[in-house]
């Protein structure tokens, strides 16, 4: 069980591409990851803070419609709102096509996988129409720049981001003994504190109690966001006095953001967090029943390096168990589309200017049928990992249908299925898939069979 260049692209990247040379060794993957984000600059997604329209602009546009005093003013407000809504929809479309095309046109597939991994670890979901187009920009701003640095930086960036705050109700959490709490009878909302412990750091098996959740929720009060200024510390909502989280005391003097950053830094370096993150990485990339030795190795390097993610990935990639030949994972629907389009070497121009109808028919609707509605995970837990969750009759029907129907719209003409075998699998394609590709009734069916095969969908 050693490094295998084809497995490297399939298991840790977005699949094989006829466009890029295979990596020669683990270092090649790490060098790509530590280089500038070329795919990000060539196929941009605007960061949250730069998006027009912002959620407050959309909210204001709706208020203007409601408050219009004359019929003419109302019509004007409706027209203006429509322009902004169309812009927002376009941003969401462009985010999906950029996510697909980065995977096709970047030599560094692992960066795309890690972006998706951490975006899933820190799942957010839009709560209503005015933020629906902001999920991708949140990932671009808070997650993608922090893929290879310290986990604590990633954790702080996400936890203090308005998208996470609004998703997990932090803006509604008021210290009961703060000025706002006492004056207005307002209280805590534990949601962010609970998910921070349960999902983002020490994990549900971690050494915390309901009291820790409560104390952390009290500590987080004050975290707030204003449309014009972004993150602010709202002292009048902050619960006074020190809080105890996992046996350590935070805050207590003047309430400020510093205590929140302190607790996030401590949580990031907690041994239970190391174990939780190592297990998640191994489960995501290698197997649902992770090799304990592999998890130990990844968790140990994470702790020794002070939570440095690049070193952590290196520990994963250098371990023999990461290269076990058996392909036990199944690509999630978006990964499946990305790797199919990468093997097909889809031209960015063929998806850049697709209209809403085609985007819906070829991507949104199929992702929904495959069980992974775009940017709409069911819960803060994110998407499931187990193959059984994805390979159900109805979800697999969605993958088969996409494989058979959509590639012909993306690549003109479709390649010969026999040549495509090499693009999809390398020089030694599985025998049964090679047989089907040769025996298929036509190009469309041949390409469809290659993509729909278990061999292509496993990694």
């Amino acid at each position, binding site marked *: 069980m050693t490094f295998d260049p084809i497995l490297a692209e399939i298991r840790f990247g977005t699949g094989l591409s006829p466009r890029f040379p295979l990596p020669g060794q683990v270092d090649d993957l790490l060098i790509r990851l530590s280089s500038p984000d070329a795919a990000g600059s060539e196929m941009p997604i605007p960061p949250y803070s730069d998006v027009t329209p912002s959620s407050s602009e959309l909210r204001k546009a709706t208020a203007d419609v409601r408050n219009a005093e004359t019929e003419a003013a109302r019509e004007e407000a409706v027209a203006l709102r429509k322009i902004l809504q169309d812009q927002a929809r376009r941003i969401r479309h462009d985010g999906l096509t950029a996510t697909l095309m980065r995977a096709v046109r970047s030599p560094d597939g692992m960066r795309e996988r890690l972006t998706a991994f951490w975006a899933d670890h820190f799942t957010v979901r839009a709560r209503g129409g005015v933020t629906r187009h902001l999920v991708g920009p949140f990932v671009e701003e808070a997650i993608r720049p922090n893929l290879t640095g310290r986990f604590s930086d990633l954790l702080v960036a996400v936890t203090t981001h308005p998208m996470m705050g609004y998703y997990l109700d932090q803006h509604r*959490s008021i210290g009961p003994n703060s000025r706002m709490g006492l004056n207005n009878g307002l209280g805590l*909302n534990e949601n962010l504190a609970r998910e921070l412990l349960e999902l983002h750091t020490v994990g549900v098996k971690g050494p915390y109690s309901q009291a820790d959740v409560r104390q952390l929720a009290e500590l987080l009060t004050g975290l707030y966001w204003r449309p014009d200024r972004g993150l602010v510390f709202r002292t009048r909502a902050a619960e006074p006095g020190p809080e105890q989280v996992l046996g350590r005391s935070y805050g207590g003097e003047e309430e400020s953001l510093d205590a929140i950053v302190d607790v996030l830094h401590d949580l990031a370096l907690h041994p239970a967090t190391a174990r939780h993150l190592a297990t998640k990485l191994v489960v995501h990339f290698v197997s649902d029943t992770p090799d304990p030795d592999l998890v130990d190795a990844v968790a140990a390097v994470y702790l020794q390096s002070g939570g440095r993610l690049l070193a952590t990935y290196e520990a994963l990639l250098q371990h023999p168990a990461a290269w076990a030949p058996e392909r036990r994972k199944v690509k999630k629907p978006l990964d499946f589309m990305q790797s199919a389009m990468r093997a097909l070497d889809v031209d960015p121009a063929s998806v850049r200017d697709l209209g809403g109808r085609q985007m819906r028919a070829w991507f949104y609707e199929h992702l929904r049928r495959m069980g992974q509605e775009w940017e709409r995970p*069911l819960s803060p837990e994110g998407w499931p990992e187990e193959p059984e969750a994805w*390979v159900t*009759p109805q979800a697999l029907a969605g993958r088969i249908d996409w494989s058979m129907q959509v590639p012909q719209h993306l690549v003109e003409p479709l390649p010969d299925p026999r040549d495509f075998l090499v693009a999809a699998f390398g020089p030694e394609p599985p025998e049964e898939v090679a047989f089907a590709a040769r025996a298929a*009734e036509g190009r469309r069916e041949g390409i469809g069979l290659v993509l729909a*095969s*278990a061999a292509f969908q496993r990694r």
Partner: protein
Amino acid sequence: MDRRMFLSRGLALGCSIAASPLITPMAFASAPWDNRLVVILLRGAMDGLDVIRPVGDPAFADLRPGLTAEAPHHALDGFFAMHDGLSALLPLWQAGEMSFVHAVSTPYRDRRSHFDGQDLLEAGIAGLDEGLRDGWLNRMLATVPGLESEIAFAVGRERMLILSGDAPVSSWAPNTRLELSPATERLLEYVQHSDPLFRDASADAIAIAAEVAAGGEMMGERVGRGNSVTMAQFAASRLVGDTRIASFSISGWDTHNRQHRGLPGRLGELSDTILTLKANLGDVWDKTTVVCMTEFGRTARQNGSDGTDHGTGGAMLLAGGAVRGGRVISDWPGLEEGDLYDRRDLMPTRDVRAHAGWLMRGLFGLSTGTIEGAVFPGMEMGTDPGLLL
């Protein structure tokens, strides 16, 4: 309605299996029971105290003044009142076809995580340390030899742990479509044949597609709109045939904020779902029990944002012609601060699994020993709550 619509998935599967040398054809036997059970999971933690309000408890009014004032209710029995969002179900209550069970929960305590709570509810085990393997409805099926997969349907795109396990069951989601030529279909079977997970799912997908092509779009009555109404239509189309158990879930019950605005829509869709089942089941409704369960209840007090946070004790809703209705079944714990679990949540006084166990005993004739040993290992069923006629 076209009889072909009910073409057994087992039969459709049989056709494709017959064409495949890779799978041994199985024998088909008819179901051993005539009663029907529909389990609806309310994901997100339904606020039992808001849906079935203990207005007769003197402590209730002070705990959640905002929530109670914002949405009206209907008196049921002098102590409990029903949230107005369920008003479409009042005729069922009056006809004795609906009941509630209050102050119940799974054995899950303290962490109050949706994900763990739902896993435990579906797995039907005492604690997550035992490890998740299968769901309790599946384990129940596994105690009965010779069942075919048509006996139970998991409906919808969402994975239903409650029906996962060793016993074969069927699953289907609305809007599944697949158009393959016969030759492509055979090649597809061939490329999947060495991977059991893909092989079986592909065979099922092809069978479903064939059936949908034969039956056309699903028909039948709809009450209201919404995805769960579609799932109820499909479930009913199976339950009037050979299917005896169906399960699906309705999400959206996690009402941390402005609960009075979010909850009525959920309750309306739940009402429509139950009424759609009734409308499409015809005479079979008399043999049917619908049970709605949720992972836990919510805090006794409203929170700072006109909502409620994750709690412990909650409520179940039962409906159907087989139900002994018109009752709220509860060993009521009271709502004074000292009565609450952890001084914050409704105290659960009984395990939801005991009620589920009594339902299976009454509907399917399972013995207490089987239920306490194989379906809910280690649980004690206790006294008969008399849920069924």
